[in-house]
């Protein structure tokens, strides 16, 4: 038996040593050649996209564990989906331990890159862009990992998504760092997820910079333990171009950081500048729901150490102008609907509350006032998100 195990081990290491590189060039038949390489790859293999523009008519997909797809740079190797005719995304990944790096996806008809149930995925130095800029007919999400554990999205650029540039949904153990998200409806959105760190990103010229949402009625409900820290959230005043019906369609232009529902969110050490509705907004879920698991209010939210530039000067909601005038021309930098629980504002800035007292109460019944400075009960500090060391090691 021992002998057998050794033989198996030897075989395993031999096969990992034999990891192959498959280089794909743009040009005729790129769709089939690239897709075939993605199908025939063995775990450990690397698929290299040569420099150039790959014209693609159908979505690509990867379902082999441990494969790396590497381009020659986010401006050099471009998967161009401008003439896409089928599938719901540009690239779909459904396997674990995958690394995507150094290439671009342009003008996907649906989402840019979606990974579903793909654990330990690394998105590194990618560009996902709708080159026409903000447009309701653009795809929904740029980088879209969902239903997974251990997700790293870093050093990437997303522009033009009609929903969220970087969207992480129904997942756990997440790091989204050092990305630049521009001219999307939501720059970065963490939804129905736990243990997420959103740090050192630049979110600018989106409708809303960084959103932390929890929605009822989904397989995974009860988002929280989210850190939003050391981000630059600047001038997120683009008119909302999301199609109605989507939750982000309700996000006012001029939103910096927005927390809806969720338990345990820390908004710390960010630079919040020129967001014309509100730098930090805390709201409860407003629609009716039937889900016993669901907490519709933002609970245990800490706001601390942020730098606040000008903002709140053009609130993008009905009566916003009058509302701002009542506060001397600009809303205070932090806005809550009043339904928060255990809110801790540790920054020396005024906070405005809409004074709602019941979840689902319409905003027309708002009774705005300044919130008395309060210090919430101490909230346990989270341990930093620890992704498996091999994930970062893959990038060396």
């Amino acid at each position: 038996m021992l002998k057998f195990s050794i033989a198996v081990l030897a075989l395993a290491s031999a096969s990992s040593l034999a990891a192959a590189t498959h280089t794909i060039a743009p040009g005729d038949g790129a769709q089939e050649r690239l897709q075939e390489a993605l199908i025939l790859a063995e775990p450990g293999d690397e698929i290299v996209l040569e420099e150039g523009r790959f014209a693609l008519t159908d979505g690509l997909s990867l379902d082999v564990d441990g494969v790396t797809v590497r381009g020659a740079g986010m401006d050099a190797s471009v998967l161009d989906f401008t003439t896409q005719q089928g599938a719901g995304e540009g690239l779909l990944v459904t396997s674990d331990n995958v690394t995507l790096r150094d290439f671009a996806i342009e003008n996907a008809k649906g989402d840019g890159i979606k990974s579903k149930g793909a654990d330990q995925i690394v998105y590194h130095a990618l560009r996902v862009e709708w080159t026409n800029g903000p447009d309701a007919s653009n795809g929904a999400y740029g980088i879209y990992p969902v239903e997974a554990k251990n997700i790293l999205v870093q050093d990437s650029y997303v522009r033009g998504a009609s929903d969220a540039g970087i969207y992480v949904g129904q997942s756990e153990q997440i790091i989204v760092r050092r990305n630049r998200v521009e001219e999307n409806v939501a720059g970065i959105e963490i939804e129905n997820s736990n243990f997420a760190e959103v740090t050192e990103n630049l979110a600018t010229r989106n409708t809303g910079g960084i959103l932390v949402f929890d929605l009822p009625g989904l397989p995974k409900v009860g988002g929280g333990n989210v850190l939003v820290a050391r981000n630059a959230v600047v001038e997120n005043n683009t008119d909302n171009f999301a199609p109605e019906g989507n939750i982000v369609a309700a996000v006012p232009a001029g939103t910096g950081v927005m927390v809806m529902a969720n338990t345990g969110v820390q908004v710390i050490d960010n630079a919040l500048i020129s967001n014309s509705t509100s730098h930090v907004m805390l709201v409860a879920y407003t629609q009716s729901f039937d889900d016993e698991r669901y907490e519709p209010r933002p609970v245990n939210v800490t706001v601390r150490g942020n730098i606040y530039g000008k903002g709140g000067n053009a609130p993008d909601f009905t009566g916003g102008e009058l509302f701002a005038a009542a506060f001397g021309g600009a809303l205070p930098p932090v806005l809550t609907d009043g339904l928060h629980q255990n809110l801790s504002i540790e920054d020396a800035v005024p906070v405005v509350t809409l004074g709602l007292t019941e979840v689902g109460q319409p905003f027309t019944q708002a009774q705005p006032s300044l919130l008395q400075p309060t210090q919430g009960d101490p909230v346990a500090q989270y341990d930093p998100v620890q992704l498996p060391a091999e994930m970062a090691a893959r990038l060396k």
Partner: protein
Amino acid sequence: MNRSAPIFVAALLAMAGATVQSTARSPAPVNNAVVMGEGAGNKMPRTLSAYGFFADLREQHGTYGVSDYRLNTPLYSDGADKLRFIYLPAGTKLTADGAGLLQFPVGSAIIKTFAFGEGEDRQLIETRVLLHRVDGWTALPYRWNEDQTEATLALAGARIPLTRPDGAEISYRIPNKNQCKTCHSKDGEIIPIGPKLRNLSPEWLELMQQAEYLAEIPKLADRMPLWEAQSEVSLDKADVTALARAYLDVNCAHCHQPGGGASNSGLDLRWEQDDPHAMGIRKPPVAAGRGSGGYAVSIAPGDPDASIIIHRMSSIEPGIAMPELGKNTVDPQGVDIVRRWIAGMDQ
């Protein structure tokens, strides 16, 4: 009954209108090693003929152990006709542990050929095989050649411009191997979709039992309706509901169910789902993006034109169109029945 008497079985099935094909000459049996992926080059055979499923490939006549079947309510595939077969190795049987999917023994296969036109004009486009191997199911697509003499493996899929018998010019898509799995997957494993007990005819099930291809089956509380029946009788509300729910189950629920490809949407369109919110009634979208079309809920009772589900079924534009795969044209009948179902709901 003597199991080694396929001709007799064929005769029996033919009598009842179903057929297990057989020819006068004794055809070669299915190559079980190929089905099982055992031996050099057999993991992903390059040609359809390598399996030996057919006594006559062009005519799609199955050999020993290959039974054809149909579904009460079928999946829409751009109007293609489908020739469906189940292969069971000698001595094996299908079993049923509920009204859902039949359980297939290891070594069995499901074969589906997509074709347009009839008689001599019939063009076979592609054949998809699902192989039940020791390590689970494998899905492979095969593309037919112009001469209709062979179908070869199309791992990366293909896009084929063709003219349908009704004159419509369409861009037909053969899915790539991964896309096969996108639909045929639950909790990350490949599974069959079509042969659910409740979507098979009682006559066929009886014949399969007589042929000893099928073990005892549970008694069914309900069955999916015959899809073509809608054109023959006037439908009452219950008929419309049954047809719409069957259609959504067959066309959507392989992804839209817990563990399916669209599980994160929270939309569950399985026949057996009876929670209104889960099946989309007054349910806001989650990740629909522009697929929402500006509408607030998947199904707005009484108002099909305000229902995302109708908007997406009525589109062929990627990013909006549902289903996302295997659909390049709108199914007018499908849209119509779901529309009538929603219109008939109390607001």
